Structures are given as C-alpha cells and as structure tokens.
C-alpha cells in the first residue's frame, strides 16, 4: 500500500511538471530545454527556505513559484531573440548555467552533496510527514493545476499560442502581441514547474543537482510527445503510463544501479518509436504564406 501511495505521489508531481511543459512546448511549440532548470530552482527554493530559515509551507510554495517565474522572464528574453535550433541551444545553455551554479555555489547549495533533511510541511496543524496525508495535500494542488491548465487550453490565450506556433507573422498581423503572449506562457508554465519542484523536494527530503539533468528533461519531453503535444488528456494519460511503466522492472531481480539506466533506455526507446511512427503529422512544418 505504501508503495502505491509512493507511485501516486510521483504521478502527481510529474502531472504538474508535464502539463506545465505542455503549455510552452505543446501549445507554443517552443523547444524549451530550460524547463527542468526552472523545476530545479523551485525545488532548491523550497529546500533552502525550509531548512535554513525554517519557513512554513505557505511561504515556501509561493516563493518557489515566484522565483521560478522570475527566471522564466530570462528564458522569455532568450526566446525573443532566438528561434528554432538557436532557441534549443540557448535554453540548453541556460539550463547548464543553472546546473553549474547549483554544483559550484557550495556555500549555498552544498554542491553535489545536495541538501538533506528537508522537513515535510505542517499545514493547519496537520503533520504531513505521513505519506497518505502528503498525497492528500498534493492531490489538492494537482487538481487545482489540472483544472487551471484545462481552462487555459480552452481560452483565447491557447488559441493565440497555437497560432504563433503555426505562423508567427500571420498571428502578429491579426493583433497577437507576441512578446506579451510568450512571456505569459513562460511565466505560467514556470510557476507550475516551480510548484512541482517544491513538492518534489518536500517529498524526497533530499535534492542534489543530478536530479535535474538533461535526462530528466528528456523524460518530461517524452511524456508530452507521447501524449501528443498540446493535448490535455493525452499528456495526462501519458504521465500515468510513463511514470508507472518502469515499475515492474523493480520486481525482476535487477540490481539497483542498472535500474536507472534501464528506465532511461525504456522511455527513450518509446519516445523514439512514437516520433518515428508519427513523424509525418507530429509537428506540421510552419506554413509559408
């Protein structure tokens, strides 16, 4: 039972993370490899505030979301200058700068040793160190995120994002303010990623830079692509599928050191398979007018 609750919590955290990436990448087609860096910033914000300053849940969560959103402004600034391949490299570079700082700013982040002993939150007198209670708390937030993302996918904002992905000049000529649109998309998606990061560090109690590498980014990318970019229900289903898929491996007698690479191999192969199979329709080439 404990194990099932653990899985449910993981699914919850990845649901927030994947849906937030679905906004920029799925709707906006912006190949933002820095999404995982924003998630890391959210996780570190909560970890540092709750261990060093003993801040409460109600301060850590908004702080994580706000600081992640501030970094989103930087990514947004990069996206205005760069398109296509160039944005992919730029966001990867941004993400690598964040990782390098996390590893090297030892006085703050303790480098590769990571931050240990992150306390579970206590809200309204309820202690959430019990996993069942924690799942309950997380579900409230997951529900809130999913409902708000569901609404976002239905409003004009989503249509504008899709339009600028398909043809940015045409979208502009119809009165879409690209700068404001993209900035908003990055802010919303990064705030949610920060929220996911905060819950991740609360749940795991321990974070280090290796949890936020490129392979995690590819995992989130896999979820969104396998679920069909821009599809709310597809990405939700794909999150369940990809998070739960490697779990049966645990019951085979495989040594734990192989388990991580096996999981990585599994989702990368599925990602490649889906892209190969759907290559003609997955990302329509930008139309020329």
């Amino acid at each position, binding site marked *: 039972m404990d194990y099932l609750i653990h899985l449910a919590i993981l699914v919850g955290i990845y649901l927030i993370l994947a849906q937030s990436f679905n906004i920029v990448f799925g709707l906006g087609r912006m190949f933002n490899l820095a999404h995982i860096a924003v998630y890391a910033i959210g996780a570190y914000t909560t970890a540092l505030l709750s261990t060093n300053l003993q801040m409460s849940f109600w301060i850590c969560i908004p702080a994580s979301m706000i600081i992640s959103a501030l970094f989103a402004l930087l990514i947004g600034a990069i996206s205005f200058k760069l398109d296509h391949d160039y944005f992919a490299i730029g966001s990867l570079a941004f993400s690598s700068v964040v990782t390098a700082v996390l590893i090297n700013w030892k006085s703050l982040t303790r480098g590769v040793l990571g931050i240990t002993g992150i306390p579970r939150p206590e809200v309204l007198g309820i202690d959430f160190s019990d996993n069942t209670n924690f799942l309950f708390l997380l579900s409230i937030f997951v529900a809130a995120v999913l409902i708000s993302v569901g609404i976002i996918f239905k409003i004009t904002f989503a249509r504008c994002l899709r339009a600028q992905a398909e043809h940015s000049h045409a979208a502009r000529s119809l009165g879409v303010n690209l700068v404001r649109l993209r900035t908003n998309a990055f802010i919303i998606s990064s705030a949610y990623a920060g929220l996911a990061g905060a819950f991740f560090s609360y749940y795991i109690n321990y974070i280090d830079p290796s949890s936020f590498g490129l392979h995690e980014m*590819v995992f989130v990318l896999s979820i969104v692509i396998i679920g069909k970019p821009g599809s709310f229900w597809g990405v939700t289903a794909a999150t369940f599928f990809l998070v739960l898929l490697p779990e049966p491996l645990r019951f085979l007698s495989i040594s734990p050191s192989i388990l991580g690479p096996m999981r990585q191999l599994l989702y990368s192969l599925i990602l490649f398979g889906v892209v190969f199979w759907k290559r003609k329709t997955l990302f329509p080439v930008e139309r020329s007018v």
Partner: protein
Amino acid sequence: MEILPQLLVNAIIAGSIYALASSGLSLTYGLLRILNFAHGHLMMVGVYFFYLLSVEYQWSLAASGLGTIVFSILLAAVTLRIFVLPFSKYSFILTLVTTLALSNIIEALVSICFGVNVKSLSPGTAAKSIEIGSVYITPIQIIIIVSALTLLSATAFIIHQSSLGRKIRALSADAFAAQSVGIHESRVCFLVYTLAVIYAAFAGILVGYETNMQPTMGTTYTIKAFAAMVLGGLGNLWGTIIGSYILGLVENLSIGLDFGGYSIPAGYKDAFSFMIILLVLLFRPQGLFTKKKRAA
C-alpha cells in the same frame, strides 16, 4: 604572471580536444542542417569501445584503434539511417527530439554495460611531465596538440583541395543547386557524418588518456562542442575551430588568473562556456567569424 605560459599551454591542449570534437559537428550541421544532440555521446561510446578493446581484451594500440574506427563507421551508418535521415524532411523539432533520444539511449546502454563510475585509459601511475622552460607538459598532451594540428590540416586539405571537398562546399552552400549538377547528396552526407563520428571518437580517446571517462561526459562534450560552434557561427568550420581554441583559452584563463586577489573557483569553468554560448547567441547569433547574411 609566472603561471601564464602554463595556462596558455593548457588552453591549447583543451582547445585541441574541443576542435577535434566540434569540427565534425560543424561540418554535419553545414550539410544536414541538423543539430546533433548526441554528438558528445557518439564520442563517449567511441572511447568506451576503445576501452573495451585495449584494456579489457588487451588488444594492441593499433588493433584497438582500427577496431574503434570500424565500430565508428558502423555506428555512423546506423545512427544516420535510423535517427536522422527519416526525419530530416519534416519539422526541425523532430531531429532535435530523436538525437536527444539517441543520446539518452547511448548513455543508458553504456551505463548498463560499463557502470557509471569514472574510468581511465592511462595506467595508474602518473605520466612523467617534460619541463620546457616554466611549462610542464606530458607526452600525451604533446600527442593531443600534434594530432589535432595534423588532423585539422588534413581536413583543411580535403575541404579545399579535393573533389570531395568541393562537393561538400557546394552542398552546404546550396544543396538543391549542387544536386542538380549531379552531386550525390546522401553519399557525401554519409561520408562527412562518418568522419565526424571518427573524429569525435578520437577526441574521446585522447580525453580518456589525458583525464578520465564516464557516461555523463557525453552531455558535457555535446554542450562544449555547441559552444565552440556557436562562437564560430553554426556550420562554419573554420569559425568553429577558432572558437574551440577561444573556448579553451577563456576557460583556462578565467580560472587561472586572479583579479585583484579574487580568483574564480575551478568548478565554474563549465559555467563559463555555457555563459559564452548564451552571450554570443544573444548578441551575435551569426557567430564571431561569419559575416551577417543579407536577407534574400
């Protein structure tokens, strides 16, 4: 400033490795117009294969080298046919995703087969350094510098003097026009891509001797090669090579020199190359050595 000559030599050594690793990436970008996120991983798997032959099977140096070249050719053929070509005529996002998937697959396979721990090709004892003036240099470092110069000159000769080089230049200037005068695009692409993988594997082997190797080095070197390429301009071979040496110089000078009693910690070396990519991309996206193209 007694440390300066040593830093310059270190910069040249680092730059030589980056130049070997990134020149192939740049040539491929010029021809295929794809960003290969798995380039560093192709380099990593090359050095692990060499390790398998030379350390675990105890093959001689020449036999292991030859084996690695054969392996690289096969690897190039397989990855190009499966991970690149089926996608190149659709959206650019597809090849970004498939090469990222490829990089993950390679890293996972190498981790499963060899473990994630640090390994080294050089025997345990530290190599004896040769002292020239105030500069210390090991034999392997001399090999790095000399072989990089030789290989890059050979590449220069191929690109500028041979008929293959003419085809490569024609294809990267205008693929459609080049094909219409009878240049076989896919054959040239395969050749160049294979060459890129072999160069990368060679750079990897040098890294394996000079320092050490581990599965995560793939990502590091992919990003370093991107940095060099961005400095010189995407797809610009000479710019990329100069960019590699600049990258080596900046990294070594930034950590070696102290600015009024304050020196930058060595760990930030990597952060520097990433910052360079960002700054160059933001302020001079065409690279330092490419003239801005006029809008057609």
